[in-house]
């Protein structure tokens, strides 16, 4: 990932801020618990859920193992259906390709379907720098955009805002972007949604260019799939003349039939519905090649790497590429529920963000080095994941990488990274421990000394160790070392 949020505070600092915000905590708790309970009911309806989950995992693993083959097949199918395929190694290249495609149309504005990939690469900012305005059309993304805010949840990016806050944002900002909010405007969700409908309809009807992502791409047929609820996706995918999709290379699946798995697991895991209101599938320009006005007359697919092949090179970490962005792991995570999405310093918050961001971006920055620790390892995220990503396993793996360094792949090249800054004390302590454990005589002498001096043991550690004992009790020192006790009781020295 070439775009990093410079100066982003590490997770513990950002989270500390967030937990102090009572409104935010209440909004989050209400939201996560509501979706969590609904989801459990939707999943319980399918007696074969575990088998669907295993099949989804298998489809994704198989695809990742043969990713080169399926991407080439996809490219051929999309091209045969009248689309154009572009390949982007990183965020800068993807942004450059999209900017040039928009420029070639002569347009200065685009409408956008909510897409994690374009957020990841900072496309809106890149377009803005080129004098092109990107309008987010998903209601939650609109709230975030108008509020000069950042998304805090994968599925419901404005989850941290309540209705009163949203009304204030609409009142203050809508007029600067187009049709102003109706006056007066109350804070009933119905009224707010209606204001968004009026504001955005103008844009849909005049837009010539749309940018979207995709939930799935089918290699066999070249079919693109977008799941949504509001109809803003359909508007963007159907009405404009030019459609540009920016999609991570891991989103490909081999066959059209494979969709039968994800059409069952994705809606239930994300919005807790049997099916989301709208799913659009299109293949290139369609049978008429766009000549009959049904959909765009130009279709571009930008295949995005941006750290994905580096992630693929890590045998433990690569399972994160199975993610279908359902956000079920966010809603069950005790850490996310209290810290909120912004604390993760990435467009991918929650447990999946904690494993995805440090892999896509590397662990050089303070925030990325701290993310593998943003978890209690309780395992709830693994239990709900519809493609069975073992998030705790990757977290532990990444902690090891942060603390000890080791071989990783960066920009396609195998390198050995040094332990992250800030873990030197920990490593010094481990080295000292090893020194002692390797020398039983010294260990025994040390233990006896400690036991004799136990009255002097402090309740809190001095210096940097205080951070630990501020929130935990220091274990008490026993009156006698265990091995002395054993020898005394059983009489046989080990």
């Amino acid at each position, binding site marked *: 990932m070439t775009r990093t949020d410079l100066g982003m505070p590490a997770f513990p600092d950002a989270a500390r801020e967030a937990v102090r915000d009572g409104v935010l905590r209440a909004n989050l708790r209400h939201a996560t618990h509501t*979706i969590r309970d609904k989801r459990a009911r939707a999943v319980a309806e399918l007696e*074969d859920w575990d*088998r*669907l989950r295993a*099949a989804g995992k298998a*489809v994704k693993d*198989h695809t990742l193992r043969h990713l080169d*083959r399926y*991407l*080439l097949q996809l490219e051929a199918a999309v091209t045969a*259906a009248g689309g154009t395929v572009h*390949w982007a190694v990183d965020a800068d*290249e993807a942004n450059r390709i999209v900017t040039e495609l928009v420029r070639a149309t002569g347009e200065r504005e685009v409408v956008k379907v909510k897409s994690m990939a374009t957020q990841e690469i900072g496309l809106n900012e890149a377009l803005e720098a080129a004098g092109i305005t990107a309008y987010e059309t998903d*209601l939650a993304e609109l709230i975030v955009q108008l509020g000069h805010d950042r998304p805090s949840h994968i599925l*419901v990016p*404005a989850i941290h805002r*309540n*209705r009163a806050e949203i009304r204030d944002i609409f009142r203050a900002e809508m007029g600067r972007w187009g049709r102003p909010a109706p006056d007066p405007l109350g804070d009933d*969700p*119905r009224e707010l*949604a209606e204001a968004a409908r009026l504001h955005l*309809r103008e844009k*849909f009807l005049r837009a010539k260019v749309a940018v979207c992502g995709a939930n799935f791409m*089918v290699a066999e047929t070249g*079919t693109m799939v977008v799941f949504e609820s*509001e*109809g*803003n996706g*359909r*508007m963007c995918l*159907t*009405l404009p003349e030019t459609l540009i999709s920016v999609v991570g*290379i891991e989103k490909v699946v*081999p066959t*059209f*039939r*494979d969709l*039968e798995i994800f*059409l069952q697991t994705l809606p239930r895991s994300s*919005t807790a*519905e*049997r*099916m*989301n*209101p*709208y799913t*659009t*599938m299109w293949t290139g320009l*369609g*049978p008429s090649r766009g000549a*009959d*006005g*049904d*959909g765009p007359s130009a279709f571009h697919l930008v295949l995005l*790497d941006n750290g994905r092949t*580096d992630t*693929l*090179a890590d045998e433990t970490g690569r399972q994160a590429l199975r993610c279908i962005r359902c956000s079920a792991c966010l809603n069950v995570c005790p850490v996310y529920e209290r810290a909120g999405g912004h604390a993760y310093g990435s467009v991918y918050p929650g447990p999946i963000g904690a494993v995805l961001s440090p892999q896509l971006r590397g662990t050089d920055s303070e925030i990325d080095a701290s993310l593998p620790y943003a978890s209690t390892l309780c395992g709830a995220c693994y239990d709900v994941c519809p493609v069975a990503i073992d998030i705790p396993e990757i977290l532990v793996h990444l902690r090891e990488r942060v603390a000890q360094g080791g071989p990783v*792949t960066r920009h*396609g090249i195998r390198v050995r990274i040094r332990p992250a800054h800030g873990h030197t004390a920990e490593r010094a302590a481990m080295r000292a421990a090893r020194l002692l454990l390797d020398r039983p005589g010294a260990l025994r002498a040390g233990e006896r000394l400690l036991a004799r001096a136990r009255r002097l043991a402090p309740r809190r550690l001095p210096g940097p160790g205080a951070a630990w004992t501020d929130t935990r009790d220091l274990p008490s020192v026993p009156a006698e070392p265990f091995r002395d006790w054993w020898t005394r009781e059983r009489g046989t020295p080990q």
Partner: protein
Amino acid sequence: MTSKDRILARIRRAVPQPGPQAAPGPDADIPRDYLRVHGARTPQERVDLLAAHLAEYRARVHRTDEDGLPDLLGRLLADAATVQLPPDLGFGLPSHPSLAFVPDRAAQTPRELDRVDAVVTGCALAIAETGTIVLDGGPDQGRRRITLVPDHHVCLVRVPEQVVDSVPQALPLLDPGRPLTWISGPSATSDIELDRVEGVHGPRRLDVILVGARGPRPGPGTRPPETGSQ
């Protein structure tokens, strides 16, 4: 070296392949032991389940046969001045003098379409377990945008023949080369405090009419009763 070559080379380094003969098709790797259908149903039960699931997502469900259809449509479209139609709906239409039918034309601009009040279409198929209707742009459905921009969509489903139980049963019947629109209830959002609000950008109202085969000629008072609108 192009970006495509670089990405493909990185993939090949990341997941080395033993050789082309060792690369199995997806079928060798993927367990397909999940269910094709959840439960056993008669055609009638399948239609009932579809109706229940559609209604749960706040589509309004109606039942009639071909003879009763024009009357029912006339009532559902009573407040519409203009109604958009696909090239060939395949059903009889009401003949109210106040109703103006607009054909689906490529030249129609989105703004013109925005002034249309309602649209009547058929569908490719419907899925009972999920409460979904699927459109594929066939002659009885028209372009994708006509079921998107107007405020009111009336969709006709031939029952029981167009209804399948499940998603795995639906996919083999669909042609991925055609543009496919899967609709489960009207447009909705839950973005504000997770309160569900219908009708954000797509049609605010979705009426689904389950159309049975032509019944016996209705004599006076024998018209099959139409079951409840939601």
